[in-house]
């Protein structure tokens, strides 16, 4: 059974964190769906709270601390990304955005990604599509069609007239991400110190 790496970026601030709870569920669902495709998953979590100071320092100095470098590299080399943020003031949290601001702009190109968010009320649910999806489209990630939004009340609600239950949405999203990851195959991250254009070509104007 060959292996695919999944990196889960989670921006929850509380301990315990509902955002992390959702992230765990999404990772498990994706892992299960990969297994059905005869693939095993190596899952790594990046808790942004642990690098919150490092992220601010990176904004100010232009380079990441060793701990943040490790987190950024984990995302860059993953075969699939699960990104989960709490919704603050009608959008992703500032901490979440900062992480993707300092990530190399090419790190997510073509990378299968699943977006998810948590909030206190379902009235924020469109933030997934008006804030997170454009962000990852800009970074040219391959975003799964289903984004998963979990409001507080979802943690105590089954399926019904309001739509499928949280558990069903999680399974569907995990299945979609697994499909994208399996279809793309394992990826090696680009070497930023690779000479992609020989100098003769640069001289010739290309």
């Amino acid at each position, binding site marked *: 059974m060959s292996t695919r790496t999944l990196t889960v970026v989670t921006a929850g601030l509380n301990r315990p964190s509902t955002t992390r709870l959702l992230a765990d569920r999404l990772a498990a669902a994706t892992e299960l769906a990969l297994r059905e495709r005869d693939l095993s998953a190596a899952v790594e979590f990046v808790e942004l709270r642990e690098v919150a100071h490092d992220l*601010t*320092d990176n*904004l*100010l*100095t*232009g*380079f990441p*601390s*060793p701990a943040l470098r490790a987190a950024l590299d984990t995302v860059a080399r993953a075969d699939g990304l699960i990104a989960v943020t709490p919704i603050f003031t009608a959008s992703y949290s500032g901490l979440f955005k900062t992480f993707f601001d300092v990530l190399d702009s090419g790190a997510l190109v073509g990378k299968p990604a699943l977006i998810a968010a948590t909030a206190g009320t379902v009235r924020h649910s469109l933030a997934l599509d008006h804030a997170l999806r454009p962000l990852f489209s800009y970074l040219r990630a391959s975003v799964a069609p289903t984004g998963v939004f979990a409001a507080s009340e979802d943690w105590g609600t089954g399926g019904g007239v309001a739509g499928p239950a949280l558990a069903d949405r999680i399974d569907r999203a995990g299945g979609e991400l697994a499909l994208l990851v399996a279809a793309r195959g394992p990826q090696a991250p680009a070497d*930023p*110190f*690779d*000479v*992609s*254009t*020989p*100098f003769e070509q*640069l*001289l010739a*104007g290309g």
Partner: protein
Amino acid sequence: MQFGVFTVGDVTPDPTNGRTPTEAERIKAMVTIALKAEEVGLDVFATGEHHNPPFVPSSPTTMLGYIAARTERLILSTSTTLITTNDPVKIAEDYAMLQHLADGRVDLMMGRGNTGPVYPWFGKNIRDGIALAVENYALLRRLWREDVVNWEGTFRTPLQSFTSVPRPLDGVPPFVWHGSIRSPEIAEQAAYYGDGFFHNNIFWPMEHTRQMVELYRRRYAHYGHGRPDQAIVGLGGQVFLRRNSQDAVREFRPYFDNAPVYGHGPSLEDFTEQTPLTVGSPQEVIDRTLGFRDHVGDYQRQLFLMDHAGLPLKTVLEQLDLLGEEVVPVLRREFDALRPADVPTAPTHADLVAAANTGEVTG
């Protein structure tokens, strides 16, 4: 090995008393620092080129020409010359003129500028940054090496039957370094021509510097200029010295905490650990600087940033005394002893003239 200072030329309030020097004071302080560099036995003074406040050095050859007249040994250089937005014709003329006035004590470092608007201010597009650096430098080389140039390119008016005057001193253009922090294309450019590569690592982790220098060395050999370890490498450095380490840390901390580039960010301790910044005793600076060689191999030029973030001139001059008297002589001895005989030093004008006379064409 060459040692020197490079200055950004920032006008920054002294955070300990709120006093901001005038432009006149800052410009004269830069000159005083250059003269002090020669007095304490350093080899190089390099000035930045900026076209926006709070920086003063927009006209490097005016300043360097003045310093040339008041020094005898010091090599005058830049950190950096904007190869992107300056007209390469004007660079060819200005630095050839400086070469004559300074009796050859001139080299320069090409760079691309510190602020986005400098491109539109000079009628260029920042998205052409690399292409400008490539085309302009290719023209600059021809202007220095060919008496009559016919040229047509993308970014400036064509030239027919153009001769750049004065011709370079002794028919030998100044040695050129290319500075870049994170563009592999610039390391590639330096390697292609067999020019020097300078990594201004003062705000960057050594691991990043190591990889950029390694790329340059590998490509230098690829283009047939010599072995990778024979390539010409320069590094930045940033130090604050007092005889006692604790005094250095105590005195430098307010300048660090409020510094324009990294202030209000990481702690002095974290930044010292993650970048080459060294705040401490002369021995600590010696040990740290010698350690750079473990990352990049034998290198040819070490420039220190000594005069930014509002440090008063008096303090900077004291720093230069310590650097020149207690640090550099030891570094010079140690680095020279470690460097194999067939790894060259950074070429001076005399070296380039000698090489030209023996038919050994450099670059």
